[in-house]
């Protein structure tokens, strides 16, 4: 069987190295790694792997928005999300941006390998328990650029950093910010962060929420 080339996007170095070690024994080859969504898009554009394996919560540009960009810059690369979230909202978003697969981090390594193989062979692979009716996503009223800006605001970036990261002028960033606040009807930093969290642009889970 031919080797399957994969680029891996996850902000946790230990997780990336672990996944790489797990795939090392198969015919799947990790050809690139990225720790944030923007680096990921650059890597995928340059390396055009068969598969991009992407964590949904990535800094600077989350996995969903990164996948949207990948569909433009590397249309042949098939996206699989690798996530801890059993969340129908995310599954819906994943399908909307054209993802081919969705793997939970609680799955066994064999399941990850099967999903990558299935997708590389041109078939979609979503967990059956998360399939079904789609979920309405809040925050549709923001455009992609505005969502990018909102994520960066919620990550604590200053306007001038946002401008640098997005390669836009400070003026444009300020305009986006004003539009976001008007469209969402919010006024404070706290409300902006909350909105970003509700839209899934960032994940702010307090300690112990899972127990």
């Amino acid at each position: 069987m031919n080797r399957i080339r994969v680029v891996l996007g996850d902000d946790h170095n230990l997780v990336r190295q672990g996944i790489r070690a797990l795939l090392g024994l198969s015919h799947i080859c990790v050809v690139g790694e990225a720790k944030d969504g923007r680096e990921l898009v650059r890597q995928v554009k340059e390396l055009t792997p068969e598969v991009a394996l992407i964590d949904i919560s990535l800094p600077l540009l989350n996995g969903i928005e990164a996948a949207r960009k990948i569909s433009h810059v590397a249309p042949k690369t098939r996206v699989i999300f690798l996530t801890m979230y059993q969340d129908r909202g995310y599954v819906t978003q994943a399908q909307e941006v054209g993802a081919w697969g969705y793997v939970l981090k609680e799955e066994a390594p064999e399941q990850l390998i099967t999903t990558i193989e299935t997708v590389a062979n041109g078939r979609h692979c979503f967990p059956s328990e998360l399939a079904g009716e789609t979920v309405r996503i809040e925050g549709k009223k923001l455009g992609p650029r505005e969502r990018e800006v909102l994520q960066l605001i919620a990550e604590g970036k200053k306007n001038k950093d946002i401008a640098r990261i997005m390669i836009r002028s400070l003026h444009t960033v300020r305009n986006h910010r004003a539009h976001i606040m008007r469209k969402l009807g919010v006024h404070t930093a706290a409300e902006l962060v909350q909105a970003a969290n509700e839209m899934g642009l960032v994940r702010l889970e307090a300690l112990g929420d899972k127990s």
Partner: protein
Amino acid sequence: MKQIRVAIADDHTLVRVGLARLLSSYPAIKVVGTAKDGAAAIELAKDKQPAVFLLDMAMPQLNGLAAIPYVKAVSPDTHILVLSMYDEAEYVQAALEKGAAGLVSKTISADDLYAAIVSVAQGKCLSAEKPLTAREREVVALLADGKTNDQIGSSLGISTKTVGHHCQRAMEKLDIHTRAGLVAYAVRIGLNRKN
């Protein structure tokens, strides 16, 4: 050479198995077992008495922090290293107070994790950074609830200027540069939930 006996608890199988495989590639480490939740971690500690236990912070049943005293109770010589998605000083402090030897973020490399394991196996603790004062925590919590500096000042009975001062200090300590960043921090560590 005497190997360091290491156990790993993480609810995400891909992460748990990946970590075990990664650490097994270091000749000085022997992975003696893995567990998928806090309760299983305690059983494993009792059974294997590992030198070092890597406990994921966010696990079902019993999270990593809550499991620390139980693991210490059944295996007093085990040094505990908490693994976390975040490495905020608040968490590091909480882990140390519970009896862990340290907390490391999953953003570090395998080599750094290896170095941390060797270090705690020798009985060393990984130190905490400066945590926020009680007053700074209150101010940040109210900020995250959407209050203005004026409102925070009147509810705490301090001047608006002092509120600004506390925010500034908190931001410096945490290396955060915007109010939105401070809010996100507060939500993440659960400060805004009235504790």
